[in-house]
Structures are given as structure tokens and as C-alpha cells.
């Protein structure tokens, strides 16, 4: 297959590596776009060609439509893959590609536009017959209207800013007596944040699961779904662990097909083509509600690939080249279970603060059932300009339990020093009883932190470390005085007697 002969990868990090690999496997020349900070990146090393697109800040490089299109033309690329983030959901970029005679590997610009606005997407979902969280369609005019709506929905409800985002102007209301003041607070916060104090009310979904459906469609009107991913393990609305199938499917085997059909209806209504993801909230009774559509390849796509055996990037390329999606819905099968964790340069012991820096030592896990999508190598300086994602580690097993055990094994092999990271944190989560039982929700991590026990220091491990360091550093540096404890001081006095 040679759908294209040369493609520009307009992204960085692990996803750029993923794309370069896919292109090589298809015999397509790859060009890695790079900023100053990424001149020596793994994607640049692995690509056939590399093209400079600007200084390190992404606003001057990876987000510059003009520069990206320009290097694509100069290098003779026939198509551009935007990865995720950056320009991947930018309809203007898709149009600029088209204007330059270059194929944008993603959905039509119009579909991106239709689904880009949350409220427009919600209307589209309702029209397509997909369930949405029940609520008022328009802003509330006064508190009587709010009371009537809340009564209809049943408490608890959620007040949300019409122009909102990021939790601003959002209030949970558990009983009618709290409604009045909550409405006042929400409206005033919304007014301050967005210059628009309009508020509407939705039914509150308590401890929801985040479950999303992968869709795939061609430009000839054929669209299918590839099943779900459960992404409920999040911190600061950032997914950190994803899996396929969702553990919920065990007790609700019909849910995949129902959610899948809803996702296909929404995407079809938007004239969607290429790969995309329809996100849903799922409540305790396994009712699902449309949330939004991500009009691009998703970070967590590997778990779907591991379980379905399909290569999503390969299909993205074929579809972008106007090939027909030859898979029917009945061709899609799910084998076993896959689970992925996102390795970030961040400090789990200090509120997950980011931790850029140089990779001092790296030894990556491999072996049976392990898939690693990594963007780093030993000696690489993890730049401070970008997202802290270093790699995605995924494991496949015949059962969820087997996949978890395998992922845990792979984590135990991972040696990564020089920057702080969340590898050991994931091992704690995987060992958690609620996690093992599949009792997941988007508030899982909050509760996990409440019950998390500080792991006891293992004196034998300390002894092993002290031994290695003592014998490897005969030329040990003088101790920084202020870090010495009284105990050490007294020890010193003894020595000096």
C-alpha cells in the first residue's frame, strides 16, 4: 500500500514517534517537524527527514499553521498528520492544508467545526437521539425557573455557566434550600470569569465513569465503532490510566453495542470521517450520557489496537487517501484486555508538579504482552515547554486481571532516573483493591489519595542503595551542613573524640 509517498508529522513526543513508525511500516517517507527544543528528539532520529518549524514555545512552532504548511510544501509532503493536541482539532488548519493542496489526515473541517463547540455538539447529539445529561436547554431567567427545573430533574443538580469551562461558575446543589444562594454565586462567578452570567441547570451525575467510544469512518458514508475505552482514572481532568474493555461491560454486556450505536449516530450526523472518539459519562445504573467528541486520534488509542488487532493510524492514512473502510461492524472482534498508563515527568509526592530535566538512566520494559510508546531516550532533556507525557506503557492479557499483573510487572522493570515520574505511583494504584475489582469513577483518585498509605521505608532496600552509592563514589562530596541531623552531629562528635 502506498497511499502517500511522503507525510509530515506535525507533532512531537511519543505520538510523533508512533506516527513515524506507522509511516515506515507502510513504506511512506516521514518528515518530523521539530522546534528548537526538539532538534535531538527521538522522532527526529527515527524519521527519514526532519523540518525545523520554529522556536521552542509551541505558539511559535507547533501551533503555527503558516510554518507547518510551508515546510510541508517545501519538503514535498502530500499529507500532514497532526497527532493529538496542537493543531489536531483546528478547523482553520484543516482548511489551510486543503488550500495548499495538502491532505489533512483527520475529519473534514466542517465536522471539526460542528463538534468543536460543546453546546453545538450537545444539540447535535440530542437531534441524533443520543442521550445527554438531562437539563435545561437555555439559560435560566430567574430562581423560580431554576427551582422548577431542579424539581423536574431531581436533586442533586449541577448549575453550569452557559459560556463555561474549567469548572468556573459550576455549583453542585443537593437540596432546594441551597438553590437560591448557589444560583447567585454561580451567576456572579460566571459573570466575572466569562463576562456572561448566564447559568443553566443539569442533573448531577454522581461518581460517573468516563467511557468513550472509538469510531472510524470513511469519506464514502461508511462509519463503524471499535468499542469502548474506560478512562475514569483521572487527576485534574487528565486521564492517567485507560483500559479496554471497560470493567462495566462484564455486568452490562449490551452496553458496548448501545453506546457504539449512539456514537455512530452522532458522528454520522456531523458528517464525520476518519478516526474519532465520542466521550460519555456513565452513571451508577449504567445509563450513559453524551459528553463531547474528540475529532482526532486519542492519546489512549493503543488499548483499542491491542484488543481489536487493528492499526488506527494505518486506517487514518488510508481513509485520508479516500480509500474505503473495508471493515464492517461485524468484522470487529475484541480479544482479551488491555490497560495503559501514562508515564509523566511529574512528582506524585508533591502534588504532581511537573518535572522536566535530563534523563540520566533509562531501561525500558519489554517482553510478552507489553507495548511501549515512548518519546524519550537516555540523555534526552525533557523540555519544560511542553506537556510532561514521556511514554505510554500498555499491557495486554487474556483477562483484565492478567493485563493488570503484566502491566505491574512491566512497571517494575522500568528504570528511569534524572526526572521525577509516576511509575511507582501506578504500581500503588494497580495494587489497590477497588481498582482490581473494577470499581472505577472519575473521583477514584481523590478517594485513593484519602486511603493511600505512605509505603514504609524498607531498610534492606536502603542498605542496598547505601552500599552501591558508598562503593561507587569513593570521591564523595562534602556534605551540605544544614541537612545533617543532630544524630549525625553526635555521631561526628564521637568520631572526633
Amino acid at each position: 500500500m502506498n497511499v502517500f509517498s511522503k507525510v509530515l508529522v506535525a507533532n512531537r513526543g511519543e505520538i510523533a514517534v508512533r506516527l513515524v513508525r506507522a509511516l515506515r511500516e507502510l513504506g511512506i517517507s516521514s518528515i518530523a517537524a521539530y522546534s528548537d527544543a526538539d532538534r535531538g528528539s527521538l522522532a527526529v532520529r527515527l524519521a527519514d527527514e526532519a523540518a525545523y518549524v520554529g522556536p521552542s514555545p509551541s505558539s511559535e512552532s507547533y501551533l503555527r499553521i503558516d510554518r507547518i504548511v510551508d515546510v510541508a510544501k517545501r519538503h514535498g509532503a502530500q499529507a500532514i498528520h497532526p497527532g493529538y493536541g496542537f493543531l489536531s482539532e483546528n478547523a482553520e488548519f484543516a482548511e489551510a492544508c486543503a488550500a495548499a493542496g495538502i491532505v489533512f489526515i483527520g475529519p473534514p473541517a466542517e465536522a471539526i467545526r460542528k463538534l468543536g463547540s460543546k453546546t453545538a455538539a450537545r444539540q447535535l447529539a440530542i437531534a441524533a437521539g443520543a442521550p445527554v445529561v438531562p437539563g435545561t436547554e437555555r439559560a435560566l431567567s430567574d430562581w423560580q425557573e431554576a427551582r422548577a427545573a431542579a424539581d423536574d430533574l431531581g436533586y442533586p443538580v449541577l448549575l453550569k455557566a452557559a459560556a463555561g469551562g474549567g469548572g468556573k461558575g459550576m455549583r453542585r446543589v443537593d437540596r432546594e434550600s441551597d438553590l437560591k444562594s448557589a444560583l447567585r454565586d454561580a451567576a456572579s462567578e460566571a459573570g466575572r470569569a466569562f463576562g456572561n452570567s448566564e447559568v443553566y441547570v443539569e442533573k448531577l451525575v454522581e461518581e460517573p465513569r468516563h467511557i468513550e467510544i472509538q469510531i472510524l469512518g470513511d469519506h464514502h458514508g461508511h462509519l463503524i465503532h471499535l468499542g469502548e475505552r474506560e478512562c475514569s482514572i483521572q487527576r485534574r481532568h487528565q486521564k492517567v490510566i485507560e483500559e479496554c474493555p471497560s470493567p462495566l461491560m462484564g455486568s452490562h454486556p449490551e452496553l458496548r453495542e448501545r453506546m457504539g450505536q449512539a456514537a455512530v449516530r452522532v458522528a454520522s450526523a456531523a458528517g464525520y470521517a476518519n478516526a474519532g472518539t465520542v466521550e460519555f459519562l456513565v452513571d451508577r445504573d449504567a445509563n450513559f450520557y453524551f459528553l463531547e467528541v474528540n475529532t482526532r486520534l486519542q492519546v489512549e488509542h493503543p488499548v483499542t489496537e491491542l484488543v481489536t488487532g487493528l492499526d488506527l493510524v494505518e486506517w487514518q492514512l488510508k481513509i485520508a487517501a479516500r480509500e474505503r473502510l473495508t471493515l464492517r461492524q461485524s468484522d470487529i472482534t475484541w480479544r482479551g484486555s488491555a490497560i495503559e498508563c501514562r508515564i509523566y515527568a511529574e512528582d506524585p509526592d508533591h502534588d504532581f508538579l511537573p518535572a522536566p530535566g535530563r534523563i540520566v538512566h533509562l531501561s525500558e520494559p519489554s517482553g510478552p504482552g507489553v507495548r511501549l510508546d515512548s518519546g524519550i531516550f537516555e540523555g534526552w532533556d525533557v523540555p519544560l515547554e511542553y506537556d510532561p507525557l514521556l511514554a505510554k506503557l500498555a499491557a495486554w492479557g487474556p483477562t483484565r486481571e492478567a493485563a493488570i499483573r503484566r502491566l505491574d510487572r512491566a512497571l517494575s522493570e522500568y528504570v528511569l532516573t534524572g526526572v521525577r515520574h509516576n511509575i511507582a505511583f501506578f504500581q500503588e494504584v494497580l495494587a489497590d483493591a477497588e481498582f482490581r475489582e473494577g470499581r472505577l469513577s472519575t473521583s477514584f483518585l481523590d478517594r485513593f489519595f484519602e486511603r493511600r498509605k505512605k509505603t514504609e521505608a524498607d531498610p534492606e532496600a536502603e542498605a542496598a542503595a547505601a552500599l552501591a552509592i558508598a562503593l561507587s563514589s569513593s570521591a564523595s562530596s562534602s556534605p551540605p551542613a544544614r541537612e545533617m541531623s543532630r544524630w549525625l552531629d553526635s555521631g561526628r562528635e564521637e568520631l572526633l573524640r
Partner: protein
Amino acid sequence: MKRHVVVNGRSGTIEIEGSRLRYEREDGVVIEREFSLQGTSVLLNGRSYRVNRGAGKEVWVNGRLLSMEVFDPRDLRTGKGASANHGRQEIAASMPGKVIRVLVTAGDTVEEGQGLVVVEAMKMQNEMKSPKTGRVAEVRARLDATVGAGEILVIVE
């Protein structure tokens, strides 16, 4: 061979003689083992540990992070005493990043909790706050400079 060690802030000693080690922690825990060391691989009575250095004082043992310092007790003679800077507080960067705002200048009076410097890394901003009410003695942070975690940005007294 005898060394003082500080592990995760807790002091101890390690004595190495032939292929035996003795590790004693200030809380009284004692480990005595036969050891073998090759590269990053340590065996203690046959149990296997992988020890890898990270940046600074960081050491990773079988994937777990320790803060570890090892001193030759003979070097301690030249060490400065643990002179506490009474009342003087050093405010350090809590993560590596770029200084994107410096909110005070030397001589300013500041209140406890007042923002001093904002550091940004990986799209996240982190505001360093004054731990006390006092006067800014020194501002070391410079705008647009890249700083490491633990690097001193401001001194308040």
C-alpha cells in the same frame, strides 16, 4: 569502610567489610547481610536489588525513589557546622521551570502567603509564596531564567 548516610532525611551508618555489610538506622533498625555488587545489581543474602542514581541526591532502588547522601566521616571535620539562619527563610523553586513573574524586589515587606515568584513548566504555573511576614532580603530569581528544583529564588527575613 564506614560511611554516614542520610536516607529520606533519616540518618544512619553503613559499615562494609569484605563481603559483609552492616546498616544501622537512627531508629535502631539494623541490617546485616552478605552482599555482592556488580554494576547496578546488588545481592543481599541472595535477594536482588537494582540501584540507579538519578539527579542530585536521588537514588532509585527497584523502581522506588530514595533521597540518599553518603559521607565519609573523615570529611565531616571540614564540614561547616549546622548553622541555622535564625529567622532567615530561603524560598526555593518547588519544580524545575522558567521564571515567568518576579513579584517582589529587595527591601519589600511581604505578608505570610504573599506570592513572590511564579515559575512555569510544562504548561503549569507554580507560585512561590512567602512562608512568613517579613522583609525581602534578596531576590535571586531573574525573569525568563531557567531554574532547577530547590534553587533559591528569594530570601525573606
